[in-house]
């Protein structure tokens, strides 16, 4: 019988298989950052263990880094100590590190792909749940905890139970103005935050094949929000074209050998998935969340749902609590929801195509009065590219703040946070209670929706912006 993409990559990494035990899986690439690694390095030290494969390990600083005044010492002593700990650990063990201020620094899931380290058919892990991002290349990539970080540092392997596989087939083509973010939010709303538990998702179908690499990364990134550790997309011409010429992409004979292997990484026609979901991509419209988990979403054209409409009692209770926390009432049109802050960035939507999409909408317009807009590039390389294209000027002229690279307000570990009761439209991945700051309220949106929302001050799509709005808003300033 044929095998799925996930099964092929899995099988190619089994170091040891024994009855009654999890498979021992080899890890091709281990990404580290400051937050989930200090206790792992402590464990190595306590047991006198070295890092087994320094050549398969790389670190950067992202979660806890400031996005302002990066040339000055970090104000918060606890944050500073954590970054210094990473630097000390990397120096002591010999791990390659791209610290704050380095040209390759950035959100770990933006850095890996842009360096060409993320490649088809590899296994990629990181102490961060959004490691699923790298599955866009046909890699098997998943987030791990700190104990597992230590395990991989020491052994370059992980004992893992073989996951089940789920096909998510997206038919048709996404309509103009509908992005990968809208698609993945719609998928999560359909299968639920627990729908992917125990599965590796494979996104396939016409709509997926037509996506750029960056859009595919947006999709795979949020697999974890559906409960799946990993999401994958079969590598194709788009993948190879993205990789060719990057720093760590293979060259010469290695390139040819790699492509020959990569081309085998497709689910066989006779392979059987453990579960299958089909979504009509052509029917989708811009999608946003109204609640406090990423599955609580709806088309922007819809209204806040009535909790009473849920049959499942725990879903009903969750919806009631979400509306209370979010300060929303059932039946309120989503377009009427006013925001205080717009955040553009994160490993979900902090790449150059995302910034271009925002700039295209906001160019010549102004951020609405009383709205703060933060644009945080996913990496220094993304920032440099944006500057080269003049996007930073577009953002600044519109009244947005152009910041340095990092995770920033996606998780609010650094000073970029919402104040209690503040509401954001955010291109990030989690709308959990307090995620972007204590008492903050988050609506997950696509980059174009974020831009239109910034201009109008309420949840909106670019289609809501008329030329008249542009002139009027611009004139008002």
């Amino acid at each position, binding site marked *: 019988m044929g095998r799925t993409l996930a099964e092929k990559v899995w099988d190619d990494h089994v170091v040891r298989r024994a009855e009654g035990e999890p498979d021992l899986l080899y890890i091709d690439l281990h990404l580290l950052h400051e937050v989930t690694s200090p206790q792992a390095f402590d464990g190595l030290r306590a047991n006198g263990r070295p890092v087994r494969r320094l050549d398969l390990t790389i670190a950067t600083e992202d979660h806890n880094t400031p996005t302002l005044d990066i040339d000055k010492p970090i104000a918060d002593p606890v944050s500073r100590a954590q970054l210094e*700990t990473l630097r000390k650990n990397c120096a002591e063990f010999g791990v*390659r590190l791209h610290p704050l201020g380095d040209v390759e620094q950035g959100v770990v899931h933006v850095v890996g792909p842009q360096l060409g380290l993320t490649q088809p058919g590899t296994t990629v892990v990181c*102490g961060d749940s959004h490691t699923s991002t790298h599955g866009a290349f046909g890699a098997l990539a998943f987030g791990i905890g700190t104990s597992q970080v230590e*395990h991989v540092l*020491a052994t370059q392997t992980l004992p893992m139970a073989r996951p089940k596989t789920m096909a998510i087939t997206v038919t048709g083509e996404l309509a103009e103005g509908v992005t990968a973010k809208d698609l993945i939010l719609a998928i999560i709303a359909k299968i639920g935050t627990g729908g992917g538990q125990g599965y590796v998702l494979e996104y396939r179908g016409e709509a997926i094949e037509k996506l750029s690499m960056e859009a595919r990364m947006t999709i795979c990134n949020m697999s974890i929000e559906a409960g799946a550790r990993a999401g994958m997309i079969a590598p194709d011409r788009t993948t190879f074209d993205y990789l060719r010429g990057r720093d760590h992409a293979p060259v010469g004979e290695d390139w040819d050998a790699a492509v020959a292997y990569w081309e085998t990484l497709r689910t066989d026609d006779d392979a059987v998935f453990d579960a299958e979901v089909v979504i009509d991509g052509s029917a989708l419209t811009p999608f946003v969340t109204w609640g406090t988990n990423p599955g609580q979403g709806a088309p922007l054209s819809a209204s806040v749902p009535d909790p009473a409409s849920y049959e499942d009692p725990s879903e009903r209770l969750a919806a009631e609590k979400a509306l209370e926390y979010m300060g929303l009432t059932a039946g309120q049109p989503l377009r009427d929801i006013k925001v205080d802050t717009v955040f553009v960035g994160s490993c979900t939507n902090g790449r150059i195509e995302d910034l271009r999409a925002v700039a295209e909408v906001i160019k010549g317009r102004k951020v609405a009065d009383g709205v703060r807009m933060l644009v945080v590039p996913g990496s220094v390389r993304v920032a440099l590219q944006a500057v080269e294209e003049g996007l930073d000027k577009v953002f600044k002229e519109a009244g947005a703040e152009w910041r340095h690279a990092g995770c920033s307000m996606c998780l609010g570990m650094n000073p970029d946070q919402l104040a209690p009761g503040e509401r954001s439209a955010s291109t990030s991945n989690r709308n959990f209670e*307090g995620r972007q700051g204590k008492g903050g309220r988050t609506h997950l949106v696509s980059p174009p929706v974020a831009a239109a929302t910034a201009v109008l001050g309420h949840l909106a799509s670019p289609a809501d912006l008329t030329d008249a709005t542009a002139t009027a808003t611009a004139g008002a300033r």
Partner: protein
Amino acid sequence: MEAFTTHTGRAVPLRRSNVDTDQIIPAHWLKKITRDGFEDGLFEAWRKDPEFVTNRPERQGATVLVAGPDFGTGSSREHAVWALQNFGFKAVISSRFADIFRGNSLKNGLLTVVLPQETVDRLWELTEADPTAEITVDLVARQVRAAGIEAEFELDDNARWRLLEGLDDISLTLQNEADIARYESARPSFKPRTIAL
């Protein structure tokens, strides 16, 4: 790792679904570089409410958390497990756990027990009606017991054995050093490397 065989204690019934790791331990706590001292961060936002279940006098010293479905969703932060343990929890019962959280818990000796929602409902009713009611989580017999309730749970033999013995996963894996070395010697040359050695 701390071994787990059987534990009996009073319960904290937490009638919430999708308790994500940001609720279990908010991000600002993640700046710490130790595995301890997270107890005050556990459910930090909810605990501001004096009526929140863990603040109730009758719940002090309770060691078994009984939560709604999809417990531990979201980030991979192992700090969530440490926070629960630092606070005093020995076991968490839910009808569904997020994968990464579950893996992290079992690596630290915090037993996460999956039971059908009907059984979770009965445990809620029992422990809400009688806060002194005790729950026994027995890994040897793979059973949860409380007054009038006896429920079997599943945990694969390998994970169970590691927990019962409190084994160190890394030491176990390093016993397979020869297999790892053999695998490494056959890896294709086109695989990426972060540095030239």
